[in-house]
């Protein structure tokens, strides 16, 4: 590849340095993660959290030792009907707090290997991708809340 002008090289170098720096410090912050408890033999549940990325990025995949099948879904009400669909990525616009919460996006943990009990902790590995395609992995330990939880403090 031949870069004709410094207009290309300098920003590219800057982006590379930034990406390298991003590897050292987290670009995406994960907060308030929680997983909804299950009853025995129940095979799926949801995980919720808040994401904030310094720069434009996407949340592209999730995994957990509790299941071979973790996906990101979006819930949408169409009139009276609830519909959920798997999404391949969730956009994280620079600086914006994006909430995965009941009523919107959530992580689906399906084909669970064990019951998830209130008080347990669920390890989640989240992968983010920035505009240059560089990936960042964040490990989270999400506490398990009761089945009826809304995620906030109970009243």
């Amino acid at each position, binding site marked *: 590849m031949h870069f004709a002008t410094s207009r290309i090289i300098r920003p590219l170098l800057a982006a590379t340095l930034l990406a390298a720096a991003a590897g050292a410090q987290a670009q995406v912050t994960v907060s308030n993660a929680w997983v909804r408890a299950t009853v025995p033999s129940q095979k799926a549940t949801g995980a919720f959290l808040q994401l904030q990325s310094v720069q434009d990025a996407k949340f592209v995949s999730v995994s957990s030792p509790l299941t071979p099948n973790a996906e990101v879904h979006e819930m949408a009400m169409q009139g009276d*009907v609830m519909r959920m669909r798997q999404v391949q990525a969730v956009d994280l616009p620079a600086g914006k707090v994006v909430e995965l919460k009941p009523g919107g996006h959530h992580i689906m943990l399906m084909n669970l290997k064990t019951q998830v009990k209130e008080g347990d902790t669920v390890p989640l590995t989240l992968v983010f991708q920035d505009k240059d395609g560089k990936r960042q992995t964040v490990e989270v330990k999400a506490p398990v809340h009761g089945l009826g939880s809304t995620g906030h403090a109970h009243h």
Partner: protein
Amino acid sequence: MIQAVSRRTFMLAGAALAGLPLAGCGLGSKVSFNGTDITGADYGRDFRLTDPHGQEHTLADFKGKVVMVFFGFTQCPDVCPTALARAAEVKQLLGADGERLQVLFISVDPERDTPEILNAYTAAFDPTFLALYGDAARLAETAREFQVIYQKVPTGSSYTMDHTANTYVYDPQGRLRLKLMHNQTSLEYAADVRKLLHAA
């Protein structure tokens, strides 16, 4: 099954009768609800489903109580737990009246929702809540009667269910009265239930 025409007439007559004492209470104004008033509706008249202990139920089993019916499935991470948690809150808000509320959770996913799972699931929200299920044919019949939709949707590794997320509310006489939406609050639900409990 009772003939549709005569049942409808009966229900309309019943609704008219129920209206009389209410007109005496207020300033002659009709009672208004947060939910959609579907009194006299020619659907959702009854069901015949099985509870997790193998016992069959129809609406008549719950006469004397306000009945709230919700269709869902246990592998639902969002809408169903939210609806049942809200129902539990409604029961709390009603105080002593809460004893005259019966919440029913009808499974739209009989393949995965075994009686054991259903029993544990509703109990996690409130021990008085009752799950009901039927086989595929019975479920289809019930959904038709309630005009609710449900549909299996494949997802990466498994499937999810699209389903109607309304709550259907019956008065203590076993008549379908209200349709409440998923985006309404426990306070709104409780206010309506209280009105139904104290009417006539």
